[in-house]
């Protein structure tokens, strides 16, 4: 017997897709409009994420959004990035909720509430970074700062790779 998806699953799918589109289109009010091709790619990635939340294509779609923002912006940090960050967090949280179980399993409201609060809390990192970036926007950043940041990021990646076990390992 093939069971259809629960209503809550459809809602979370729709919210995830919407979040991804918001992540791309949040800059429109400030004049950052993506081409239709990019919108189509992201839309397809959103649909894929709605049905296969753990698929590699979902991560790649998020990367496409990041690359598009990186191309459009140079040193500017518009307010639209805050909305875009909220959209990306929403898409990620929706994917997390969808990957808890099969599609016919209803997602309890309690779990949705928990992740909504978590999403909101982690999103607060975006305004903090945005504020710091705005404060230092007019200051010339020494190259050593960027190199130090890159080194820290690489070290973080190495630590993460050590901490995170591979599938079936330990």
């Amino acid at each position: 017997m093939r069971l259809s998806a629960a209503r809550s699953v459809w809602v979370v799918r729709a919210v995830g897709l919407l979040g991804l589109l918001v992540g791309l289109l949040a800059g429109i009010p400030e004049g950052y409009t993506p081409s239709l091709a990019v919108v189509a790619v992201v839309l397809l990635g959103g649909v894929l994420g709605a049905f296969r939340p753990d698929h590699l294509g979902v991560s790649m779609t998020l990367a496409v959004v990041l690359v598009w923002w990186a191309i459009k912006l140079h040193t500017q940090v518009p307010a639209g990035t805050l909305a875009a960050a909220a959209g990306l967090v929403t898409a990620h949280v929706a994917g997390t909720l969808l990957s808890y179980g099969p599609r016919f399993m209803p997602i309890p409201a309690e779990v949705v509430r928990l992740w909504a609060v978590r999403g909101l809390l982690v999103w607060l990192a975006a305004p903090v970074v945005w504020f710091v970036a705005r404060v230092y926007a007019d200051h010339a950043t020494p190259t050593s700062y960027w190199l130090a940041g890159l080194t820290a990021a690489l070290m973080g990646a190495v630590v993460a790779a050590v901490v995170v076990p591979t599938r079936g390992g330990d």
Partner: protein
Amino acid sequence: MSEGPSRWHTTGSLARALAVGGFGVAVALTVGRPAVVVLVGPLVVLASLALLGKPTREPRVLPGLAHVQLYEGQGTRSWLEMSGTEDTEHVTRVLAQEPFVALHPVGGAVLSRTDDVGPIEISPRRWGERRVGTEKVAMTSPWAGYRWGPVQLPGREMFVLPAVTRMRSGGEAPQPIGLIGAHRSRREGGGTEFSSIRAFHSGDRLRRINWRVSLRQGTLHVESTRAEEDTAVLLIVDAMADYGVSEGIDAAQSSLDVTVRAAANIADQYLGGGDRVSLRVLSPGGEYAGYGTGTRHLRRILGLLARIRPGIPRDVSIEQVDFRATAGTVVVVISPMLSPELAIATVRLVRRGLPVIVVDPLPPGSTPTVHPDPAAQVAQLAWRMRLLDRSHLLSQLAAAGCPVVPWNGPRTLEEVLRRLARRSQLPRIGV
């Protein structure tokens, strides 16, 4: 359930947060785009929190089932006994979908917190052997960074007994020959039903004396009553084939569903009235229960009915089956009468002077299951011919003195048995 290598592994959610967050930071730092850090900052925080929640111990889970024997339509609960779940946050349970087993919530999938795992309700919808409780369990760490499982937990075999409608009226036995029971006998004895008024004999009880008649006649007269005896009931269940669609209790029934439920109800009624009941199933398993009484015997009969698998009996032809029906035994044959051999055996029982009733379990409009192929029309034609043969057989049975009734619930046999009892009390002329 958790010995051996760890079953914890990273979730797709953590992998995505790490990959996208790391990629964003790398892009931001290499090409100098602070806005990208704003975009991926929340994902980096989320991934960090998920990494911090890495579990250090293996949980242990054991499935539990409240009942292992149920009547169809009844329900039970499946739960999990868990330990070592301090590092876990959520549990996902997904029960396997078995035929004729209803689950609540629908689909049998539940996501709940580890400290509040609710049971899943299971209700078998059809008699027979069912495997219930097979499930997959997965657990996730806080912030969904790691997942344990899914681990498959085995289910349990459950014998689902046919549903019985409790009704204490099995109908009057036409020729009860037994000990103390509830059926009116043809011979006189210490019952309650009036039979006649006759002259006093030595041994008659004084309280039976009818004084009005005695004064009028001048000699003592007593009121005699009929004896009350139990009877033997033989249930012959035809499980040689199953016709029609079965959708479980309270839905469409196949011929075998009707057969099994009818047999269960008749056995329950007669055993509840103190009678002796025997069961003979015509199937490959050849299930048989000798004459017995009481609740335990009823459980045995229901258990045998639940084990039935349709098919032609092995190693023995129906003509050779010894039905072990002694004089006075009420024989109930539950069969769609699509087997001429069984019809002949039934007529033989009728000719022995036994009260025989055929209960027809074939649901109207039912057809045998045939594979859809170009020969489907031929199969339909063959089925129509079988039905014509069947109607001819049924009319021949009726002509031989064997009533044929469709199963209409627990009161089906009452009227037929009453008629048979009336017939058996009529005076007979010996030839």
